[in-house]
């Protein structure tokens, strides 16, 4: 009789579960953010752990040239010292004026 060389469902399941276990165990030493019993937060933690176990933790993000800078929207105000813009801050305007006096 020739031995059947197929992967049965059982072996596939065992391999899959043990692979998942190794992903989850990899992050056990470090504390994870709280989930508050929220399903989406649990999914986020799974993503987080998978990234930290599968990716190179020393990888650096891509560098770009000065020419690659693009126009971009500001979060909040661009210049809080300008009273005509939304997000104006009186304290910041004072600080800004002081700094300008010092430099000139």
């Amino acid at each position, binding site marked *: 009789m020739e031995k059947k060389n197929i992967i049965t*469902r059982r072996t*596939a399941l065992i391999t899959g579960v043990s692979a998942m276990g190794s992903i989850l165990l990899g992050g056990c030493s470090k504390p994870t953010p709280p989930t508050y019993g929220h399903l*989406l*937060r649990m*999914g986020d933690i799974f993503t987080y752990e998978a*990234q930290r176990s599968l*990716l190179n933790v020393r990888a*650096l993000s891509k560098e*770009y040239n000065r020419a690659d800078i693009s126009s971009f929207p500001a979060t909040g105000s661009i210049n809080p010292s300008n009273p005509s813009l*939304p997000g104006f801050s009186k304290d910041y305007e004072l600080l800004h004026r002081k700094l300008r006096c010092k430099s000139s």
Partner: protein
Amino acid sequence: MSENTSRPVKTYHSLWVKISHWVGTLGFLLLVFSGVEIIMVHPRLYWGNAGNDLMPALFEFPISRNYHHGGWAPAQAIFDQPNSLISAGRTYDIFNQNGWGRSLHFLAAWIMVFSGVYYLVIAIFSGHIKNNLIPRLKELTFETFVKEIKEHLKSSIAYLKGPQYGLLQKLSYLMVIFILLPTIALTGLTMSPAITASYPFLLTIFFGAQSARTIHFFAAVLLVLFLLIHIWMIVKSGFKKQLLAMTVKK
């Protein structure tokens, strides 16, 4: 249909096909739902590395209040030079629910990954792909193509039991499994700065993170189109029969 008498003909779908089909369906529907929500937050697509509200878009979708909202403070130059890049603050309260949309998208993507890997491993090693999905050589003729397209345009099409698929069916399944799903998974990963830091080639093959987002969107459109045609064909070949074959029939 070409009958191959040398191998036993299975009558209905295997249990692992049913499980991966329905778990994958759940994941896919959640992905479409959260994907539309994510597009609503920023209904613009770009090409290249960067893209934002102050840059020209490749496409814009009129699907949320963020479309052409126009609420900007006067733009200011970033550099002290003529034709400088600009920045501007928003004066308009945009629809900005990125948190749950992205979390749900990722959770649903994990569901798809698990059902997809479960399917692929068994499908490859059990011979399902070789025997049932890759067309036979004698099947791959122009005549079969024309015949099947004509059949599909009629009001009802033949009901094929279990994993005996027609030529167009085989080709569309292969396209979904080996072209569209890998493309959508890889372009999704390309949008993650953590992943492209480890695998920068992803940014090269998809022309940048924003191009990856655009390709991701169009792959999703093709998958939704597949889903609609899939359901249409199930209705045409007997909705109840097909649904029973994919669930309780053994």
